[in-house]
């Protein structure tokens, strides 16, 4: 609880009821956003499954080297960034502001590396002739449309997360934000990680040669 909220509860304690969820409203709102966004990702993954099940000439273009290996590295980076985010939250809650900012910086860096690896893979596919409406292997063009839509939506979330992490790190260092802000941003970052736990097996591994 921030100082301002503690002060508020001291002055108006008798008038305010405790949250039935036992968490601050900003954290509850983040949870609600996460559930709604999970349904969005669920819908787009179901859509991908629908197109795949309904297309007799679906392509499976991904070789172990380099695509699946690259995906494994990206997954490890994202999982590691979740771990560093946990350390940032723990340090923030313990009042170790500088340590927390360093962990937040490392998390941001890992997010940038993930995005860079993802974009490198995209541009390699573009060079091979893939697009949202073209399949150089001659199979269903729906592969490109679904692949770039799903991974693009996830990449958009990673990019937004990187920006949010940087803003929170700077604000937390300057004292504008408190540990609860770091924790709430952490929830979002873990969610982005969790979504990738479905994207990697369903979109990459199920399309491995």
């Amino acid at each position, binding site marked *: *609880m921030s100082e301002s*909220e*503690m002060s508020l*509860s001291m002055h108006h304690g008798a008038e305010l009821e*405790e*949250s*039935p*969820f*036992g*968490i*601050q409203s900003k954290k*509850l709102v983040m*949870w*609600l956003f996460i*559930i709604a966004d*999970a*349904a969005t990702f*669920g*819908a787009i993954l*179901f859509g991908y*499954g*629908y*197109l795949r*099940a*309904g*297309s*007799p000439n679906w392509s499976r273009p991904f070789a*172990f080297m380099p695509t*699946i290996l690259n995906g*494994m590295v990206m*997954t*490890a980076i994202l*999982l*590691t960034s*979740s*771990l560093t985010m*946990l*350390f940032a*939250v*723990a340090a923030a*809650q313990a009042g170790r502001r500088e340590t927390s900012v360093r962990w937040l910086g490392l998390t941001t860096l890992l997010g940038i590396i993930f995005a860079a690896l993802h974009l490198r893979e995209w541009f390699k596919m573009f060079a091979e002739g893939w697009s949202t409406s073209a399949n150089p292997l001659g199979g269903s063009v729906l592969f490109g449309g679904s692949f770039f839509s799903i991974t693009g939506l996830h990449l958009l979330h990673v990019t937004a997360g990187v920006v949010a992490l940087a803003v929170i790190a700077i604000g937390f260092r300057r004292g504008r934000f408190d540990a609860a802000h770091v924790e709430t941003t952490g*929830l979002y970052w*873990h*969610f982005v*990680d*969790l979504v990738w*736990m*479905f994207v*990697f*097996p*369903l979109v990459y*591994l*199920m399309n*491995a040669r």
Partner: protein
Amino acid sequence: MTTMESSHGPGTRLYVAVWIGLLAIVGVEVALTYAGLAPGLLLMALLALAVLEAGLGLMFFMHLKYERRILFWSLIPALIFVLLMMNHLWRDASRMIQLHL
């Protein structure tokens, strides 16, 4: 600790253990992919492992295990219900393939 704060249960060791577990599951997923399983069986196995990963992430990384139970019961069943309802479309996907679209 104030009443508004949730407990932040696990420590570094548990976090690292879960992280290693998640990395190991990714390794198992890749191994299964090249194990020559039938596509349907592979899909089921990969989905089951992804749900396991999501559960570990939700409970330990996102601390849902350490929040009040009402938070879990207010959020997760609703999401599962929505995702289950999306399964209604599969029959139409089968129809599409029969139409040779």
